[in-house]
Structure formats: C-alpha cells, structure tokens
C-alpha cells in the first residue's frame, strides 16, 4: 500500500494520549515530543505493511518508550543499540499493553498535559502556542502562520514556554478538586483564545487562520470527552462550533467583511450547527448557566434563524443582559447595545454605549457601532466622524473596507 494518507488522522487522533503518557514516564516535554515523532516515523514504516494496530495510542506509547530508553542509552554510550526489529515489532506485546492502559489513565494523562500547557506562570500567548504545538501537534510554521508571526519568533515563543515549564517545578501529580476546577477554567479559556486567534481574521489570511478555529473545535471535543457532564464545557464546544459554522459566509469574493445580517445563510455549515445546537440543548438541561453557555445560546439563536429578519433579537437582548451580569465587560455591553438597537431602537443603544467611550475609545468596533447608531438616528455628521475614527483603528484591510463602504453610502446619500 503506497498511499499512507490513512495513517495521518490515526496519528493525529492518538497524539494527545500518546504524548501525555510519554510525558508521565519521562517528565520532559522535549523528550516526550521527540520520541513521539520517532514512533510516528516507525508507524509510517510498519503500518502499511502490517496494518494499523488495534490500539494506535498504546502502540505509539510502547514504541516511544523503547525509543526513549534507546536514546538515553545512546547518550550514555553504555550499551549497544538493540536491533530495530526488537523495538518496533510489537505484534505479540501489543494486546497486553492495550489492556494495561485504560481510559482512566488516559484521562489523567491528558489532563496533566493540558494543565501544564495552561500553567498560570505562562502568559496566554505562550499557553496557546504550547498547546497547539504539544497537544495538537501543529508544526511551528503552521502555528506561526496562524498567529501571523515569523517562524523564528514562534520557535522562540515555544522554547521560552518550555523552559519556563522546566524551571517552574510543575507538579506532575493530579491536582486536588478545587485547583482542578480552576485549571479546567484555564484550559477552557486557552481553547477559546485559540479560537479567537483564528476567528479574528481577514479573508487573505483566512486559510491559515481557519486551521486555528478547527483546532479549537478539536480541543473542545477533547476536553468534553474528559468532562462529559460539565455544562460549561458543552457551552464552550457549542460556542466555537456555532461561530465557526459561519466561516464560509463571513467574507465576499473581494475579501470584504459580510455582516451577519447580510450573510448567505446557505453557506453556513449545517452539520457543525446541528452539533452545536445539540450540545447547548444538553447543557441547558443542567440548569447551571455560565458565560460560555450564554454566548453559545446567543450564537444558537442566530444559527436557528434561516433569514436574518427571523432572528429573535429580544431573546438575544435578554441573554446579553444575563452575560453582562455574569461577566461584566465593556465589550459585552457593546454587543448588548447592538441587540438593543434592534429591539428598542438606536437611541437606547447609543445611550448605552456613550459611557463606554473611556474604555473602548481605542477599539474599532466601538466607533463602527457608534457610527451605525448615529446614522440610523440621522445624525450624519457625527456618524461620519465616528466612521473616520473606526477606519483609523481597523486591524485588518477587510474591517477598513467595510467602514469605507459605510462612508461611501453616506457620501452618496448626502449628494442625493
């Protein structure tokens, strides 16, 4: 069998389990990663011939351990290399290994790995880079493209994160209940950051950065398998799925931003929407709402509306009110104001955001929304000034182009 394309998804799926178990054995991130790579190379060599093992993760862990022992021996130059057949021929031993490594061990291993990547001493940018490298197995160039930084800069960021982990005396034991809860929240936050990193993008960068959104979805499914009854994790997974489902409709062919209300909803990914809706449905039954669930519920209302005019804005208005109480932030208030504009009019919305000027004065969306409200109220001069501020603060060419479109419409309106 010359085509080995079928192997790559198996290796990707096994990776978090295998790297996490190797880390438990060797307590060394670099070594765990290195021997996992070597085990993958051997898989590519032997699986096409022998077929995939029954438990791919167990196979990779076994081979990885042998490679590590071999590496340590080679480094100490005390022993001759064992022949490769002894290391990678696992047909007899595999079944026994698979029995010993059960799901409970895997669960603790992966949690430990995720907790290490989200160590509180690491800044958020390093946490997400490290998780994408170690847990997801993205290459440094892939991650660098996702973050729009040079490969050298990303390499350095990951190296720094690893050396901080090495010197931080990270406990390899499973944390206690209270700490565990805090750490899960940190892992969820990290996954959402990965998602946002990919979501905040313009079309030219879209291909490279969409990979981050897909990775965030995979990580959220992984976390959900570890905590299948935690409603906030269901909420997180639903949120990233429902938002990413709109990816295909967010930009036009010229790379311009297409606002939610103008998007061609037939381009939305129906299967991701179905999965997101099913998860938020499950979460709600627990009666323990949290910020991810509320945000997912808002995204769900958009997803359920087959036309923009069918959107249940009064429900969205209520949900944003809930979110503001749970997690007060000027950004949440700004988003709330957009719902308020739909339900109660631009006047109320404008009154809501005026007090946010101090905090959001440097934020593109604040001036964009303010301009739109002023325009709806017929205050065109002020609207023009607000759009001018927005353009100056645009992060991407697509954002700037969108506001320029508003200004052009304003100019045309004035000329009429």
């Amino acid at each position, binding site marked *: 069998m010359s085509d080995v394309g079928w192997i790559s*998804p198996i290796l990707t799926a096994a990776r978090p389990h295998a790297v996490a178990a190797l880390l438990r054995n060797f307590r060394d991130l670099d070594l765990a990663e290195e021997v996992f790579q070597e085990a993958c190379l051997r898989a590519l060599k032997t699986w096409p011939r022998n077929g995939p093992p029954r438990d791919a993760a167990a196979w990779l862990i076994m081979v990885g351990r042998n490679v590590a022992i071999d590496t340590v021996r080679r480094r100490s130059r005390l022993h001759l290399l064992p022949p490769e057949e002894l290391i990678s021929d696992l047909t007899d031993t595999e079944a026994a290994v698979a029995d010993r490594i059960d799901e409970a061990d895997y669960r603790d291993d992966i949690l430990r790995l995720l907790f290490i990547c989200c160590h509180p001493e690491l800044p958020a940018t390093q946490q997400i880079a490290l998780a994408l490298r170690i847990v997801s197995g993205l290459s440094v160039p892939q991650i660098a493209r996702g973050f729009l930084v040079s490969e050298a800069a990303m390499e350095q960021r990951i190296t720094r994160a690893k050396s901080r982990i090495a010197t931080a005396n990270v406990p390899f034991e499973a944390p206690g209940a209270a700490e565990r809860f805090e750490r899960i929240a940190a892992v969820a936050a990290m996954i959402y950051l990965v998602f946002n990193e990919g979501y905040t993008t313009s079309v030219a960068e879209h291909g490279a950065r969409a990979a981050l959104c897909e990775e965030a979805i995979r990580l959220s499914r992984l976390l*959900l398998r570890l905590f299948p009854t935690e409603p906030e994790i269901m909420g997180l997974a639903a949120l990233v799925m429902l938002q990413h489902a709109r990816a295909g409709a967010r930009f036009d062919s010229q790379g311009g931003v297409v606002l939610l209300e103008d998007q061609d909803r037939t381009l939305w990914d129906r299967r991701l929407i179905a999965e997101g809706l099913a998860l938020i449905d499950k979460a709600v*039954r627990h009666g323990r709402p949290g910020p991810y669930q509320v945000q997912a519920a808002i995204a769900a209302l958009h997803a359920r509306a087959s036309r923009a005019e069918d959107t249940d804005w009064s429900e969205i208005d209520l949900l944003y009110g809930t979110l503001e109480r749970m997690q007060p932030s000027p950004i949440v208030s700004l988003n709330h104001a957009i719902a308020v504009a739909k339900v109660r009019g631009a006047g109320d919305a404008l009154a809501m955001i005026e007090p946010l000027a101090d905090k959001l004065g440097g934020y593109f969306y604040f001036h964009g929304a303010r301009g739109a409200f002023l325009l709806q109220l017929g205050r065109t001069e002020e609207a023009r000034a607000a759009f001018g501020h927005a353009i100056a603060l645009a992060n991407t060419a697509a954002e700037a182009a969108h506001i320029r479109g508003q200004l052009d419409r304003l100019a045309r309106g004035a000329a009429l």
Partner: protein
Amino acid sequence: MQYAILCYHDEKVTSAWSKEHDDAVIAKLGVVREKLVRQGKLGPVARLLPTTAATTLRKDREPPLVIDGPFAETKEQLLGFYIVDCAGLDEVIGIAKELGEANPGGAYEIRPVATFDPGKVAS
C-alpha cells in the same frame, strides 16, 4: 429479510479527517448507495453526530435516569433503533421515557442525526 448495518469507527480518528477526506469518503459511499437504491435494497441511512452530543436514558430504574454521554455498558447489546423528529432534547427524552415505560430495563442512547436519507425498501 431486512438487515441493519451498524457503523463503528473511532470517532477521534474520523473527526481528525480533513474536510476533503471526509467529502471523498462520503462521495465513495454515495456511489455504493446509488447502486443499492436502483436495486430497491436501501432503506433509511443516517449519519450520527459525535458521542459527545449523546444523552442516555437508563430505564432500568424508576424514575428513569438521564445521563450525559453515550451508552457505554457492554453487558447489554444493541437490539434496535427509532428515528424520531423532535424540537429538542426535552421532547426526545419525553418520548424515550414513554417507550421505556412500555418496555422497562436496559437503556436508550439518544444521538442527534447529522444527515438522514429515508431511502425506500419494500416492507
């Protein structure tokens, strides 16, 4: 005789498939399905969402117990399935409870359907 063919695979692997790979697999299956349709042999086909979207109703106790996640015990075996059209999870659970009252014991796993084709076979 009608037969059900139950599809098993490691969802960690299938969810690691690229969009292109997934599309290619579905296209290849489509060819086989078309042939079976022409022969009048193909009944309903459903692709299910991942088990993380699953809920299980244990009906071996009173009142029955609703648990998050797929049905995982191995001492029971898969004996059949229903496809129901509902507004949401609450409604499906209600229906499952009603079915469970008629036939207590065991469990129902509730899995949202991702794609569904009613097919057509002589009954």
